[in-house]
């Protein structure tokens, strides 16, 4: 189900009504699991089989890890269950690519199994819920606070809670990726009177506005980046389209995350913030502390640190960084472009760590910001062109078309108009950060109802073609 669909609004209203009814208070978790399953399996009920299998396997394995005293047995269980999650992820996400690769290399075209692999659909959200399963297993193994003592002996309650942790619908399909140790303590009875309505309104309005008005309208406008269309446009138009796509990526994904946080609050749960003004980053490391924070911190906690982090010397640190970024890239999809995208980011972070000191003065900060923004935005094009050859051609066109006249028919003006709200969003943040402008900005807080009103109005009368969120494919 899409957050911006009628079906979802009906599901949410019914769930909310039942959820906060005093008679159902003891069934709140079960109710949310049922709603999450409807949310996930609404269009393709068959996908529920995989989700339920994943949930049950992770619940039972983590329960046994939790109950077991023998250290070697705990470790073995952990390895088996992590491998199980990775197998599920790889089988569904990379199976088709590997089968295609094998078919190209060998001349075996009669294998039914390979044909089956090639036609395998990608189950939506699999990258997110398998990572959450791994988080649960590792947290239980590390004896982090995942279970309260009262629940640890009750298997059925444990399965219920883990099912809830993995399937909770606001984050199920596109994150934020939750960590078991920060979510489990929140599982308790919720009351209607505790809802922070202003925060809910803020997150939902902002999230839906980013997605429906900014990202969905930019979707068609940035199609000049596709092959072979980019060949026809001037460097100026292409750079503007790259800027537009960069804004679209942010608006789409940050929009989803904001909606998820808002829905979480509506149901009494604090989900982690996934974005912190990433396009204000002045270095690549800074960017990854601001973009898709839940994935970055997941990779840091469950990959980078176990690999040794920065404790094993400079070069080992660089290698660990590169591996983590590569894993992050491959996690996004089975195309080589994602691996290149991750690898390039890793490479830039390493260069930065090796040769650059943290920027102190304002000029260096501005130059750093400009460089990071340009590089990050150009690398996003790999998400629009999942073919390396096309990306190389795009890059060539970017330099070759410098003397091409600007086509007045183009969508440059529209791209600027639809990107403007995001620019304002960042500008507001910058102005609130400085003491002088902060005082001045506070005078405008009374205008918030008017601003939210305008945003909702635009959502009603100016939404783009309702499309899937870009991160659904990951």
């Amino acid at each position, binding site marked *: 189900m899409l957050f911006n669909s009628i079906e979802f609004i009906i599901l949410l209203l019914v769930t909310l009504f039942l959820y906060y009814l005093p008679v159902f208070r003891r069934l709140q978790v079960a109710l949310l699991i049922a709603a999450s399953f409807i949310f996930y399996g609404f269009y393709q009920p068959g996908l529920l089989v995989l989700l339920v299998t994943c949930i049950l396997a992770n619940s039972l394995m983590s329960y046994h890890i939790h109950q077991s005293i023998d250290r070697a047995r705990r470790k073995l269980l952990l390895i088996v269950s992590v491998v199980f999650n990775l197998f599920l992820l790889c089988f569904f996400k990379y199976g088709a690519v590997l089968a295609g690769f094998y078919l190209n290399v060998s001349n075996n075209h009669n294998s039914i199994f390979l044909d089956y692999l090639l036609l395998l659909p990608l189950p939506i959200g699999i990258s997110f819920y398998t990572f959450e399963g791994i988080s649960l297993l590792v947290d239980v193994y590390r004896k982090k606070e995942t279970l309260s003592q009262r629940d640890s002996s009750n298997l059925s309650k444990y399965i219920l809670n883990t099912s809830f942790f993995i399937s909770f619908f606001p984050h199920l399909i596109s994150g934020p990726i939750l960590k078991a140790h920060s979510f489990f303590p929140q599982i308790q009875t919720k009351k209607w009177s505790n809802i922070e309505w202003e925060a809910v309104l803020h997150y939902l*309005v902002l999230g839906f506005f980013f997605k429906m008005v900014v990202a969905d309208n930019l979707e068609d406008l940035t199609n000049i980046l596709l092959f072979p269309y980019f060949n026809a*446009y001037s460097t100026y138009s292409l750079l503007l389209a790259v800027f537009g796509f960069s804004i679209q990526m942010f608006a789409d994904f940050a929009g989803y995350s904001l909606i998820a946080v808002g829905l979480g609050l509506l149901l009494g749960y604090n989900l982690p913030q996934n974005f912190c003004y990433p396009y204000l980053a002045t270095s690549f490391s800074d960017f990854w502390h601001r973009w898709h924070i839940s994935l970055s911190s997941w990779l840091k906690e469950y990959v980078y640190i176990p690999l040794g982090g920065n404790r094993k010397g400079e070069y080992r640190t660089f290698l660990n960084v590169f591996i983590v970024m590569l894993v992050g890239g491959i996690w996004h999809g089975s195309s080589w472009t994602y691996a290149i995208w991750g690898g390039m980011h890793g490479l830039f972070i390493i260069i930065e760590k090796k040769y650059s000191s943290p920027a102190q003065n304002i000029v260096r900060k501005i130059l750093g910001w400009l460089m990071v923004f340009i590089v990050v935005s150009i690398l996003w094009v790999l998400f629009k062109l999942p073919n390396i050859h096309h990306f190389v051609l795009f890059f060539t066109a970017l330099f070759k078309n410098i003397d091409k006249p600007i*086509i007045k028919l183009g969508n440059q003006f529209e791209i600027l108009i639809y990107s403007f709200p995001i620019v304002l969003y960042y500008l507001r943040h910058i102005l609130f950060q400085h003491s002088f402008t902060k005082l001045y900005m506070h005078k405008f807080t009374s205008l918030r109802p008017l601003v939210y*009103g305008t945003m909702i*109005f635009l959502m*009603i009368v100016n939404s783009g073609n309702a499309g899937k969120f870009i991160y659904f494919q990951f």
Partner: protein
Amino acid sequence: MIYKVAFWVIIFFLGYNVYLIEFPLKNGDYYMLQEKAEDFVFDNRHYDTILVGSSLVRHFRNIPIFQGKQFYNLFLNGSSAASGIELIIKSGKIPKVLFVETHHLTKGLNDTLIKNVFQGYSIKQFLPALQSKHKFLNIIIKKIKPQIKKLDSRGVFFREIFYHHIEQLRHEYSSISDSLKYIQHLNKVDMQLQYLTAKGCTIYLFEVPIEKELALSKRAKFLRFKNHQILNNKNYQWIPYDYHNFYKTTDGIHLLQNESYIYEKYIEWCFQRARKKDLINKRRATLKPLGSDS
């Protein structure tokens, strides 16, 4: 807070609707599918002649039958005439004469488009702000942005794209695929057209000429054969494919503007001839045969 927000939303929304009712937008040359479809469905007007088809007929407006207030060019970019016909049937705006361009019938009916256009039909009629052609920011952009004068100036810049497009089409037209699906689509179109003829609409079917190489390809020949085989009701008039002239296109299938004019002239000639023939047949039918009284 929530009440204040709701207040502003209601004020803006009602104000915008009142503005649109008081100052309705003129029919425009909309490029986006839903905008174009809604432009036709919700404009509260009836048309005597409608042309349905894909982007191939986008610039058909040069001959008298494709001009005037009683004519509507319901071209739908990237969709087939089947979607246009469905819009006509569902909106009840059945014309006296319907021209059907058959090129993209392989694409079948665009169900999503039809669903989106007719979802909340009566609300959209009552509150025009909900129609996608009335996107608030797009209207402002159109007012500010300098108007585009000549479309053909793009040709020079898009040469490379067209080259890739022709290559792609060559590959596509080299084989016949999904023939069963295509027959299903055609049967559905036949049903739609039968419904329209039963309502008194005269149907003219035609295939826009494309690059000769593609027009004579295996796939094009197969599609042409199937079109004539399935859409062979005696009430439909087929405008024959123009093999006698060579038409130049931008990308293999879209006619250049001046070529489009020549082809429209051809349609006009065929149309007038068919009407004359029709009139003669009707007169013959009213005349009593010799000796019938005895």
